[in-house]
């Protein structure tokens, strides 16, 4: 049986996070009343002209630079013609021969840790279409054009992927980069990032590309993985049976976990692209590109390397913190104020993320980084124990007060009063004669239990050093 190699290239559509649409000032916002965000331009009334949104171009260039692309000083808008009710003009303004960005790359890691470079052929800008609603309407379809004309970027890679893990890593990194740059929110489930893989297989060791299948309806990272795996099996079985593959577009059915035929190449659309006469060529002067380059946010990889060095974190911790720009922003703000990176990291990865996971986002989390920093400082200076700190943290979730104020109000500060601690120690010793005897017979471990009981008695507030010392002294004394 022939051994096959997977060959995949992907196209990604990402919605750009601008405030207004690409060619008109309608709000670029979702969840509004249908057609509330429309105007003569995006409704394609006669006589209107498109005017390019500067921020959309800026975001696209930012993404292009982050993906190591060449940013072309001259690019051109083109009309892609097709008829569909979600496209009022009868054409989509896109780019064809001259996209804004070309020749980029992103390194991916396979499951065995091997690094490979994925070439990015192009990134271009285009407008999105509206939405068709079919549900609850028997005789027709309903059209909401709020999304029509909102800015999208399309990223096209070369067919450089050789494994599903590489695709997965690429999508994960890409999503992270776009989120770090605040260019796209990267939400695949909601469709703000959509991915279409072109999948083919070829006998291992050969160079010619096989017959490719374009897969649509992928709305999660998991679906991308499952969809490609399914196609590899389907195509392999067909070739092994001596059948011929057709170039076709297939859809992914998430529930059935299988792909289905949408159309074969003969039905492929003929888009009759031509330069849009309504828009002059898009000229980006090098000074502007340079300005965008300078103001581009720090990217995930260099940022991770920096925080490892700066805060003395290990790789695994840095991975968790860098998984989201909001988390790493939160961490760095807190760590700088607290003056202790490692301790702050433990708190962010532990209590903070646990509480965020229970509901909400880190952006709206009630304990802002400066308050967390104050809490970390209280632990660092020995004002409260880490057990007490957890209690204070719980209270901070519902109180706007500073941790210092909470400690004061609740009487949670560390007790270093030797008399009070000695009283607790005496009680523990009289309550646990068996454990005291065991310790005196040489079972050193029992001391931990006795100290623990003492701490419990002091409601976690005893100064651990004093408690330890007094407990040892008292036990030794009982030997006599």
């Amino acid at each position, binding site marked *: 049986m022939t051994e096959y190699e997977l060959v995949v290239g992907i196209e990604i559509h990402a919605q750009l996070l*601008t*405030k*207004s649409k690409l060619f008109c*000032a*309608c*709000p*670029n*916002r979702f969840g509004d*009343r*249908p*057609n*509330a*965000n*429309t*105007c003569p331009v995006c*409704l394609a009334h006669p006589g209107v002209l498109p*005017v*390019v*949104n*500067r*921020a*959309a*171009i800026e975001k696209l260039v930012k993404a292009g630079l982050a993906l190591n692309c060449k940013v072309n000083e*001259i690019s*051109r808008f083109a009309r892609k*013609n*097709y*008829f*569909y*009710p*979600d*496209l009022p003009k009868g054409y*989509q303004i896109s780019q064809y021969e001259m996209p804004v960005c070309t020749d980029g790359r992103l390194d991916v890691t396979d499951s065995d840790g091997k690094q490979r470079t994925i070439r990015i052929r192009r990134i271009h800008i285009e407008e999105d*279409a509206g939405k*068709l*609603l*079919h549900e609850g*309407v028997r*005789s*027709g*379809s*309903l*059209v*909401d*054009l709020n999304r029509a004309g909102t800015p999208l970027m399309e990223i096209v890679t070369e067919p450089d992927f050789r494994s599903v893990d590489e695709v997965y890593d690429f999508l994960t990194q890409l999503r992270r980069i776009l989120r770090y740059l605040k260019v796209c929110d990267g939400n695949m489930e909601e469709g703000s990032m959509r991915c279409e893989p072109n999948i083919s297989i070829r006998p291992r060791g050969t160079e010619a590309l096989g017959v490719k299948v374009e897969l649509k309806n992928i709305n999660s990272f998991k679906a991308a993985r499952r969809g490609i795996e399914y196609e590899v099996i389907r195509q392999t079985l067909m070739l092994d049976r001596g059948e011929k593959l057709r170039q076709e577009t297939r859809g992914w059915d998430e529930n059935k976990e299988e792909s289905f035929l*949408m*159309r074969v190449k003969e039905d492929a*659309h*003929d*888009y*009759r692209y031509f330069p849009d006469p309504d828009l*002059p*060529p*898009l*000229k*980006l*002067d090098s000074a502007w590109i340079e300005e965008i380059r300078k103001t581009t946010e720090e990217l995930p990889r260099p940022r991770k390397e920096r925080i490892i060095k700066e805060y003395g974190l290990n790789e695994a911790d840095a991975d968790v913190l860098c998984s989201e720009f909001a988390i790493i922003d939160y961490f760095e703000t807190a760590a700088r104020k607290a003056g202790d990176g490692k301790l702050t990291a433990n708190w962010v990865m532990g209590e903070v993320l646990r509480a965020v996971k229970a509901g909400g986002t880190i952006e709206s989390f009630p304990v802002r980084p400066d308050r967390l920093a104050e809490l970390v400082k209280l632990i660092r200076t020995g004002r409260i124990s880490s057990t007490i700190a957890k209690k204070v943290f719980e209270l901070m979730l519902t109180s706007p007060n500073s941790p210092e104020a909470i400690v004061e109000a609740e009487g949670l500060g560390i007790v270093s009063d030797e008399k009070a601690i000695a009283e607790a120690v005496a009680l523990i010793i009289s309550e646990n004669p068996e454990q005291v005897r065991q310790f005196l017979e040489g079972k050193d471990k029992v001391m931990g239990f006795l100290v623990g009981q003492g701490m419990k008695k002091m409601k976690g507030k005893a100064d651990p050093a004093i408690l330890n010392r007094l407990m040892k002294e008292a036990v030794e004394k009982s030997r006599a």
Partner: protein
Amino acid sequence: MFDIQKIAKLARLNLKPETESELSTQVKNILGYVEALQAVDTSTVEGYGLSDASPHFRPDEPVERGDPELRVRISARTQGDLFFVPKVIGEGDA
């Protein structure tokens, strides 16, 4: 050359067979004009080149559009705030 039926299909036109040859001739003539234009020597004419393009951008400032009713009601058929069109199920964008 062009296939008049294919062009008609892309333009969503239902072309009657009896008009096929007449339309083909007309389209051929239009294309002929363009070819004639292309034959003109323009080497000495300063053209509309790419390099002299000047950028014209809009700032990213959204404008609220108000009640959609005003814009939707000009459509032949509506349902609430939505445009109503004949049933279409299938694919739009590639």
